[in-house]
């Protein structure tokens, strides 16, 4: 609002000054107030531009924070079973750059839309009041902008999609050729591939340019309508000035305001295209949030319900590989999408895949950003036969690479730590000793037995004879129907 007031002030003082000096031959020194108004208008406009940029970015960041929170809420609600069927890297891309690509929509398009809706009628009104015929021209041509945008949008929608594809395809092709360089060298295809690369680049260029020729049309149409309308208004004002129907001051005033009346709508058009890509790219985010809201509680596909296990004993689950024994644990924990069978607080669970996050060994065992019980830490490291790593060592993606066996023992120590610190009733172990050597495996088995003696119900999935031999209760899983 302040911005459009400033624009009107600048336009008014400019046209008033010119007509006074030029037509009325007033001395410049008696028109100093015009300079003041110009300066005030200019300052106000500069300030508005500054503030607009700042608030738009802030608002977009706030929206992103909220959306990211909702996205993670949704992913957690859908659970690990849902996530397991999807590519983690792809979802992470959605949660990071996907959200960023929404920024033009929130930071530019939406504010511009609101601003346009508020400001355009004001400009039209002012021009209408100053010069009826220019107002009519404006009213006739303004709706042409959204009309053309929609028409061109329809005509180019399929081409727009193709453009996105064409642009990414070429990069993907290049990426793939570089990734497969070893293979290409082995098969002596490097030189041939170099030529293919040139050819594919050329083909893509020809195809992309065809698409761009149509895509750029929408920008062309928007600019053409706006500048032709200004030309129309300028010529009609000129002709009516010639007849003396209009004063110069009003004529100039309208000439200056006319482009301003088109500008917001044109920018909506420009921003619309920029943000449409982002909205398309991030539609996956909203889909996930929707899915979590509408998703009903699924019936747990439990193959375990029929089996009972002995409390305060070592239960071993066995059965042929690949029939989903791990799913049993997932269902017990409610990770398969159903209701958990156990209270999560009562359970210490060790998944089959050893998961380490970036941090020290101690953090990986006791948890990130929580006070560590040093005595318990030393005890569980001993129980898990973790004798070849120090607690302060950094492991995980950014730390030292640890062997599969070390990772498994860290995970064991983590599970023991939780079992002891939280006095868990159940210990669920998925292939706990598959990567361990014999000596360490038997040490771990002893530790498990000591936990059983303390009254913990242990359920272990295992193929290893050494663990099966000491089992107090067997659960045979045959298959999922």
């Amino acid at each position, binding site marked *: 609002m302040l911005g459009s007031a400033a624009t009107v002030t600048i336009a008014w003082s400019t046209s008033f000054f010119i007509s006074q000096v030029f037509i009325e031959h007033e001395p410049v020194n008696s028109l100093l107030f015009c300079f003041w108004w110009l300066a005030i208008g200019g300052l106000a406009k500069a300030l508005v531009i500054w503030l607009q940029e700042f608030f738009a970015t802030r608002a977009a960041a706030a929206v992103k924070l909220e959306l990211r*929170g909702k996205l993670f809420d949704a992913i*957690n609600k859908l659970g690990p079973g849902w996530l397991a069927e999807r590519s983690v890297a792809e979802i992470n891309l959605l*949660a990071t750059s996907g959200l960023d690509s929404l920024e033009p929509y929130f930071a530019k398009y939406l504010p511009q839309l609101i601003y346009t809706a508020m400001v355009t009628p004001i400009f039209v009104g002012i021009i209408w009041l100053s010069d009826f015929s220019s107002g009519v021209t404006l009213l006739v041509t303004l709706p042409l902008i959204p009309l053309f945008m929609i028409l061109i949008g329809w005509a180019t929608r399929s081409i727009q999609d193709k453009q996105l594809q064409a642009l990414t395809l070429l990069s993907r092709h290049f990426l793939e050729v*570089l990734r497969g360089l070893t293979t290409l060298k082995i*098969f002596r295809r490097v030189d041939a591939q170099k030529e293919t690369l040139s050819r594919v680049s050329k083909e893509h260029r020809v195809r992309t340019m065809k698409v761009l020729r149509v895509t750029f049309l929408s920008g*062309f149409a928007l600019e053409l309508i706006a500048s032709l309308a200004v030309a129309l208004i300028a010529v009609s004002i000129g002709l009516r000035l010639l007849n003396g129907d209009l004063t110069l001051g009003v004529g100039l005033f309208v000439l200056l305001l006319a482009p301003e009346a088109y500008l917001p709508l044109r920018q909506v058009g420009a921003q619309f295209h920029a943000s449409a890509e982002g909205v398309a790219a991030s539609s996956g985010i909203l889909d996930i949030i929707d899915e979590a809201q509408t998703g009903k509680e699924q019936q747990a596909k439990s193959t375990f319900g029929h089996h009972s296990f002995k409390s305060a004993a070592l239960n071993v689950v066995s059965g042929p590989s690949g029939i989903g024994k791990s799913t049993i644990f997932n269902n017990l924990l409610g990770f398969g999408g159903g209701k958990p069978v156990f209270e999560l607080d009562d359970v210490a669970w060790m998944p089959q895949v050893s998961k380490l996050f970036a941090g020290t060994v101690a953090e990986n065992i006791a*948890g990130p950003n929580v006070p560590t019980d040093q005595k318990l830490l030393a005890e569980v490291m001993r129980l898990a036969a973790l004798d070849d790593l120090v607690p302060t060592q950094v492991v995980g993606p950014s730390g030292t690479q640890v062997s599969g066996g070390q990772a498994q023992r860290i995970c064991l120590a983590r599970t023991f730590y939780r079992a002891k610190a939280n006095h868990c009733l159940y210990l669920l172990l998925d292939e706990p000793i598959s990567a361990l050597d014999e000596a360490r495996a038997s040490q771990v088995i002893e530790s498990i037995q000591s936990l059983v003696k303390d009254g913990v119900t242990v359920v272990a999935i295992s193929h290893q004879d050494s663990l099966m031999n000491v089992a107090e209760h067997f659960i045979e899983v045959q298959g999922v129907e």
Partner: protein
Amino acid sequence: MSNRTKVNLALGLPRDGFFKAGLIVAVLQGLSAVALLGVSAWLISRAAEVNSIVYLGLAIVGVRGFAVGRATFRYVERLLLHESAFRMLGERRPQIFAKLAPFIPAGLSKQSRGEIIARIVNDVDELQNLPLRVISPLVQAVAVASLSVVFVFALLPAAGLALLLSLLLGFTVAIPISAKFSRISDETIAPLKSRLSEQSLDILENQELYLAFGWMNTRRNALAATHRKLRKALAKTAVSNGFGLSLFSLLTTVAMISGAWFGGHAVELDAVPGAQLAVFMLLPMAIFEIAQSAQPAASAFRKFQVSASRINELLTRVVPPELEIAAGNEVFSEFQSLELSNVSITYPDSHQPVVAGFNLRLLPGEVIILSGPSGAGKSSVALALCRLLNLSAGTYELNNRPVANFSLDSVRSRIGLVEQNPMIFIGNLRANLLFAKPEANDSELIEILSSVGLWQMFANRDGLDTELGDRGVLVSGGEAQRLALARAILAGFKVLILDEPTANVDRETADGLLHELLRVANADDRAVVLITHEARYKSLANREIRL
């Protein structure tokens, strides 16, 4: 201009006619925009003082012409510049590919290779920003601004000088200031963004762990904290960006006021015709609008510099002696024997050999197991055998003659590697086989697929037209090995090196797969080197060599 900048410009600047034409049209476009406002202002002013349309005819045509020109030139400019940018990229890609070839696989470590390659691809895409977002807006702004200054100066020198001064302030103060601020905030934003991505990936990857252990909230809070830091940094960028924009807006006002002041006084003194006053005041608005479009050029240039420097670093990299493979002209056709004696292998940039004092003798039809713990250099021997890596000591002989006597092409046509993670290219099954032997016909392909036990599976889909790779059918670890073996047999290799073919396969299916692969690989008197760390396959081989 620094040397680095020069080299980078040479890399990213198109030199074809499209680019030059695009720049000229861009300047014409800017001039049309300025002229549209200038002539409109003059037309209206003049109309107020004359009484016949005769005086206005030319101006009316001009206004309409410039209006059409402004939009049309923009359209043509964008097409021309994009055409030249795409042509430039089309030249760079094969160039970079050829340059990178000697370094892969042994010159880039396995861990960082994927990341480096992804970055190169991105960097190449970034190159188009130089012509599109740096050079063209800058050339347009500078050319339009200087021509306009000359024009105003010719009408009224004082107004011309004032316009020049305010434009110079814009170019030398406003653009550098906002460029500097945006550099500072970019430097804080990039690390925060990658931290955010790391944290969110960590949550997703370890979701079940964090949920089961009650650590999810801690992790979510840390993510939110990073986001808030990022928000602050973004707000700072917005402030600096807005500062540059508003400074430009202020300078526009300054130019208008000075135009009014000098123009007004000149009209008073009858030094210039009164109809020109509007031109002095209105022209700056159009000129500054164009000058302002050059503002993001500085930050676009900085991003371009980063990408271009990385590419140039790659292009100027010297191939280390370990990867500079010596070869002669003799053609190696009939495989009779292969012998490595007392061989050492050292990777570039490393002082420690991975393999030392290694011996191997291989005859047609033999199967040799190369075993040893991970990191013992088994794969390095495989690379050396295929001549993808030099020996640092010892001899490599084929048919009792030094391997360097033979042409690289002929050696690689007989000795081939079935990689641990063979590349399945996006495309159909036929294309994935044909690059091993372009002249093969469909029945030959089907026969080979049947022999490796793959045809049944594809026959049920789209046959040889089955799409593979990223968007098509996902191929499992075992299927990928079979496909890679089919390719190797098609290529006519006489020595086949199988690198841990069961590494990505369940233990249960591994044994069956290995037996089958070995049976096919060993047929037709082919010699096989099987790399494995499993002890249980020993009985399948003539000899075992431990590393």
